[in-house]
């Protein structure tokens, strides 16, 4: 019984969006009966710019942010895990505090950064602030994973004459693969959902990522109905993430719990 309620609670709103998106506007306002239609989706996909553009933009930003974050976080987490306890503890505490920090408070400084350094309206440039915002969680996660690798393994490799790079490549990274996958997914998820920074850095409609695009669609509503098109946008906007969640559930969940707990 409780499980059923949980299911309903979690899925209810989304299922309602799915339902609304397939109904015509008359049906939604209760004026007419029947009216199942794909019209809302057609409107969205053929819009100007087509909805797919936003999804692609989000993928680009997500991928570049993930790459940059991992490139910076892996060495840092490694070093942190090999550092002495006392020093590491202080740094880790600061990193954990940064992980909880609401990013929106930084928007003004980042806006001025975008203006002064001409980083605005460039998808790849967004990966800089995103990487910075995701680093804390990634570092915490990866540091925990690194700490789990017994130091004897590394020492054995050292004895065999492996340099730092070789150790990383052949021993550590393969063992880190699950943690890295988790981090990558969490970073990707964050960049898909991020709103205030994307909102202030991107003004050209064709460059918008999903979150600000949805907000703009919401703001343009002239009528309170039909919500059919908006529901369709909600469904299309959520679908990739739901897919991601279902495919990689274990990694995402373990990443969240590890990162938050060990931090």
């Amino acid at each position, binding site marked *: 019984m409780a499980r059923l309620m949980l299911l309903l609670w979690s899925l209810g709103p989304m299922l309602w969006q799915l339902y609304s998106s397939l109904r015509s506007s008359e049906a939604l306002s209760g004026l007419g009966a029947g009216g199942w239609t794909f019209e809302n989706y057609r409107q969205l996909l053929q819009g100007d710019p087509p909805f797919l553009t936003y999804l692609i933009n989000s993928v680009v930003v997500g991928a570049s942010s993930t790459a940059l974050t991992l490139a910076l976080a892996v060495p840092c987490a490694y070093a942190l895990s090999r550092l002495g306890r006392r020093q590491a503890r202080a740094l880790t505490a600061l990193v954990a505090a940064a992980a909880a920090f609401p990013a929106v408070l930084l928007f003004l400084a980042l806006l001025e950064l975008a203006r002064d350094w001409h980083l605005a*309206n460039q998808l790849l440039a967004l990966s800089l602030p995103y990487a910075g915002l995701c680093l804390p969680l990634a570092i915490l996660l990866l540091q925990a994973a690194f700490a789990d690798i017994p130091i004897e393994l590394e020492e054995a490799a050292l004895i065999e004459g492996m340099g730092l790079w070789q150790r990383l490549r052949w021993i550590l990274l393969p063992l880190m693969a699950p943690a890295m996958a988790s981090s990558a997914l969490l970073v990707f998820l964050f960049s898909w959902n991020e709103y205030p920074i994307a*909102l202030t*850095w991107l003004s*050209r409609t064709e460059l918008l990522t999903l979150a600000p695009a949805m907000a703009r669609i919401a*703001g343009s509503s*002239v009528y309170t109905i039909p919500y059919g098109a908006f529901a369709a946008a909600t469904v299309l906007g959520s679908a990739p993430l739901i897919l991601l969640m279902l495919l990689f559930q274990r990694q995402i969940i373990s990443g969240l719990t590890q990162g938050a707990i060990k931090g």
Partner: protein
Amino acid sequence: MAQRWRLLLVTFSVAVLLTVGALARPQIEPVSVLMPAPFADATTELVSAFNRSHPRIALSVTRGPLETEAVSDLAISSLLLGESPYDLLLMDVSWTPKYAAAGWLEPLDRWLGPDALGDLAPGAELGNAFSGQLWRFPLVADMGLLYWRTDLMAAPPRTPAELVAISRRLQREGRVPWGYVWQGKQYEGLSCVVLEVLRGFGGHWLVKNQPQLDSPAAVAAASWLQDLVRQGITPEAVANMGEPEALQLFQAGDAAFMRNWPYAWAELNKPDSPLRGKVAFTTMVSEEGEPHAATQGSWGFSMLAGSQHKAAAVEVLRFLTSAEAQKQLNLRWGYTPTRLSVFEDPELRAANPVLTDLQQALAAAVLRPLSPVYAQLSDLLYRDVNTVITGDESAPTAMRALQSNSERLLRSSGGQG
């Protein structure tokens, strides 16, 4: 051998001719305009007509959000980043100083000539030119009006005391439950109401960048509004009323007077309206010797300084604000024009006899302060006056606080010293 050369020559000539032909064909200049959704809908026909008659210009209208402020937000987000996809913006009168001060607008003086505002009805020219330059050309105008019931009284009141007296009498006689409804909610509409009453008592909001909100006239104005509620002439719910709520109450016959915009006239005279033919409007009441004020609201076109197609944009601007266009907007959509020639058009006057009254009201127009920080000043005003209306604060205390807050605002945003 010779044949091959000839073929080559022919091909070459054709290629040259094609290229020259393509280059010689006039380039189509795209002009992009941002308008709030209602205006975008109203001007669709005009836009198509323009595109038909001007083959070298491709005019496209971006349909902005419904909410006024959201349109400005959309424009600002790209302007702040140093670029904008628009050439023209349809601007509310209260934004123009902000955009101009930020350096985003192109002065229109040299494009429209020295007598650009010549054909405008008195009152419509306000809010377009300041700091010695023309920034905007008005398209449609709005003004605050005092609506009164012709079936309940012979003539409308001209002073605050008269309004109160008539209301009291009618309420005592049981003809109406309430005397006067207006907009008292904490929003921009309240600022418009306050401005009219403030001027009516001889006060001013901002003079030479100095707020004058603790003057005796200002305190008197706020007190008068408070008394309306205290004496039961205005319902307490006015503190949450916007234009739709006030109209609803008035249209149901529950009030003798209403303050609202011209759009309400059309609503009140719809075929199924209970007040059809029983309403007239005039300007707001005022003390002896003080002006009968009507807060002016208007929308007009401004050109962005960063536009790449300025000449084409000016043509668009001329077309969309021409007398013909304004006439269309009035006949089909009910917008009040700004050009004198349109007001005096006999065909329009016949179709809309109330146009004369609107023109008179427009002549009494007063402008909200033309300050780049107007939005914040207005925010302070409507918050403070709202507390006076609800009775939470006395008028003198609130206005004094408002004055010091306004001064502090101007100081800390670089407006003084």
